[in-house]
């Protein structure tokens, strides 16, 4: 039940994009086409879960143990960057099919506030390992959900006669805002 509430909370109520403002750049950048949005979502789920587990371990067994928590930012970003590099290399060699799908999104993820942010939130909330894992996964699902819903609406909006100055990013942001508004529906539910 606790995990269920955590999942609902992280996916809907504290949605990482729409409520926490993390990962907005890829949210705006990869939502013009549904296929891109789906690809990015899958890549984020993959990386966010891996990063969540590794950074939690680094924090608990290294930083806290050595009492050097101020190195958290530095070590987390290095872990995430190397993880992404490693995943990229691994996929390229072993699963070229998946690499073709995710490959272009992987470098984007290094500089994605959502991945780093989710890791920091896990630590900030003092989750234990399973909870951190669960929370990373839920945040990633929330990211994917928001991105895919947004891509659907955005494709539709971009087909309409949007006035010139508002076209593309501008109307995209306003649309995202309205989607964020609709997500306030879930407030208070857990």
């Amino acid at each position, binding site marked *: 039940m606790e995990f269920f509430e955590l999942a609902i909370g992280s996916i809907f109520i504290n949605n990482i994009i729409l409520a926490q403002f993390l990962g907005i750049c890829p949210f705006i950048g990869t939502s013009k086409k549904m296929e891109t949005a789906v690809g990015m979502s899958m890549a984020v789920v993959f990386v966010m879960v891996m990063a969540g587990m590794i950074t939690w371990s680094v924090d608990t067994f290294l930083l806290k143990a050595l009492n050097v928590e101020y190195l958290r930012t530095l070590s987390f970003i290095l872990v995430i960057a190397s993880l992404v590099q490693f995943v990229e290399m691994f996929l390229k060699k072993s699963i070229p099919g998946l690499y073709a799908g995710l490959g272009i999104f992987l470098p984007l993820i290094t500089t994605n506030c959502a991945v780093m942010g989710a890791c920091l939130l896990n630590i900030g909330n003092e989750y234990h390992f399973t909870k951190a894992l669960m929370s990373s996964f839920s945040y990633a699902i929330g990211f994917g959900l928001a991105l895919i819903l947004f891509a659907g609406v955005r494709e539709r909006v971009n087909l309409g006669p949007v006035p010139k100055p508002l076209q593309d990013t501008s109307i995209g*942001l306003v649309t995202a805002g309205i989607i964020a508004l609709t997500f306030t529906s879930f407030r208070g539910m857990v």
Partner: protein
Amino acid sequence: MAQSLAKEFTKGLWAEIPPFRLVLGLCPTLAVTKSVENGIGMGLATTFVLVFSNLLISLLRNVIPTKVRIACYIVIIATFVTIVELVMQAYTYPLFLKLGIFIPLIVVNCIVLGRAEAFASKNNPVMALADGLGIGIGFTLSLASLGAVREILGAGTITIWGGSPIFDMSNWFHPFTFMVEAPGAFAALGLMLAGMNLIGKK
């Protein structure tokens, strides 16, 4: 030289001003601009990191091997971010609380790494400094103006660093709270972007 220096500096203030022209660094832009004060604070923190990391990366550009350049940039940037984090915690604690997680996240701010890769690694330190300063100040101005719009409409007042408001219309105006909430952040940025497009590109 002087001319191109000025150009590198001023491009960040209009032609390539983030996040309007360079649609990057959106997370802090949206998250912390509930007020002018937060906007300026975030902008300055980012500028600090931008300037010093640009400078250092430019200085070391011939030493850093290309294969591990991203890792090196990240180490440099993260170092400055942590310094900012600690210093703000020690000296501007209330602001640090308001900016929260977005201070450590400067490390993944697409603008910072973007400048490192696209500019600092290819130009001399003076140029890199001008570029970092220009982009940083542009970013600060953007955040401050977005913060101003949101604070005026969303709170009816503008208050900077304690004290009494420097602008106040709350006696007749019920705040349009939408503007300081998450949805309003997106909408305000989107509409401001449209306004900039209307004024004209470049």
